[in-house]
């Protein structure tokens, strides 16, 4: 078995390893950022959390580990970093990283392919909403309109636009829950 003298002094490791920490960084920074962006929805936080993951993980990193092991370690670190972020920011775990399912973000040839599910899911949510609810959310979240611009576009007051957006988001959240993970 594996104990004592049965273990060869030198062990063969997977050829698929990183040669240095820079290659760890270059291979994973884009993927980790995209994952964080999908979980927080804004660039500033995604950048900070991505920085925190690398800053935390690179110290204890063992480069002789396989790429798969390194990515799994980065993902577990990202899980903790994101959980801490939501605890500080809102006191509620709004989104999370699941190392079992989200590993695809780090292992797919292009992380874009994984994230590309986001527009399709958003379309499904929006299509399930009444016209006015769908329109206010499209204007705000997809077309980058301010609340004033959205109100003007829909011919309603800013106050009404705020109420409409709130109700639309509530209904969209229910649709999102019905769609499942």
């Amino acid at each position, binding site marked *: 078995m594996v104990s004592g003298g049965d273990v060869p002094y030198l*062990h063969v490791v997977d050829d698929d390893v990183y040669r240095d920490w820079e290659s760890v960084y270059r291979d994973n920074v884009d993927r980790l950022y995209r994952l964080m962006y999908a979980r927080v929805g804004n660039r500033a936080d995604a*950048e900070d959390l991505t920085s925190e993951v690398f800053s935390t993980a690179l110290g204890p990193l063992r480069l002789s580990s396989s790429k798969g092991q390194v990515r799994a370690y980065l993902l577990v670190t990202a899980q903790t970093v994101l*959980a801490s972020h939501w605890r500080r920011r809102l006191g*509620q775990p709004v989104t999370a990283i699941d190392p079992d399912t989200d590993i695809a973000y780090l292992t797919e040839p292009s992380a874009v392919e994984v994230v590309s599910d986001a527009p399709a899911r958003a379309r499904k949510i929006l299509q399930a909403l009444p016209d006015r609810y769908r329109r206010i959310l499209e204007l705000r979240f997809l077309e980058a309109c301010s609340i004033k611009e959205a109100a003007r576009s829909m011919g309603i007051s800013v106050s009404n636009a705020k109420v409409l957006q709130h109700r639309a988001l509530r209904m969209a959240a229910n649709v999102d829950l019905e769609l499942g993970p």
Partner: protein
Amino acid sequence: MSNRRLFAFVDALATGRRPKRFRAQPEDADVLRTAIALRAARPGEAAPTEPFVEGLFQRLSEQAKSPSMPEPRPARRLRVRTVLVAAAAAGLLVAGTAVVTEQLHHPAPTSAAAHVPQGSQLRTGTFQTTDGQVLGQIVAYRGHPSWVYMNVNVPQYDGTIECMLQVDNGATVAFGTFTVHGGGGQFSKTLSEVNVSQLRGAKLVSSTGSTVAAATFAR
């Protein structure tokens, strides 16, 4: 619930600003999650910018060169380097410059006032056989949640391995079982019943009940 604060958070998301903190209620989470999902679907904004990627690389480079980073213990470093250098010389190991670290962590400053885990929050150990051969590494993180991650390279072994955690009072706790394929395996799990600061070590046990390797957490 504060609808005003919830609106402000959502408004910041929609307009691409960093949302401000507030004490959200559980029922707000679904709305915020959906707002994030809609925002993340906006075309062309999911990729990192070049200045961010290069700026972070520079900060991490400086962090890696920082003289304040503690050195691994000389004795263990010598032992591990002996193995790694010998392996590299034999053409078997690509990453010949790697060393096992002991409680390394001095984060580079980030643009946010985020809490980065400090050294005391991360504890590491090296899995070794009874004759000192290195088979892997274990990392324990104390936080919310706490977790343990380990990877092992056990030559010519396929099968399950059980991880036992040893705590300061001498008790041993079964932590979990994972599968090793072709000698390689990794395992991670959140840790809720044991305080990370009270961990003494870990032991890997094969499916036949024999001890594969043990690790002692650095203080």
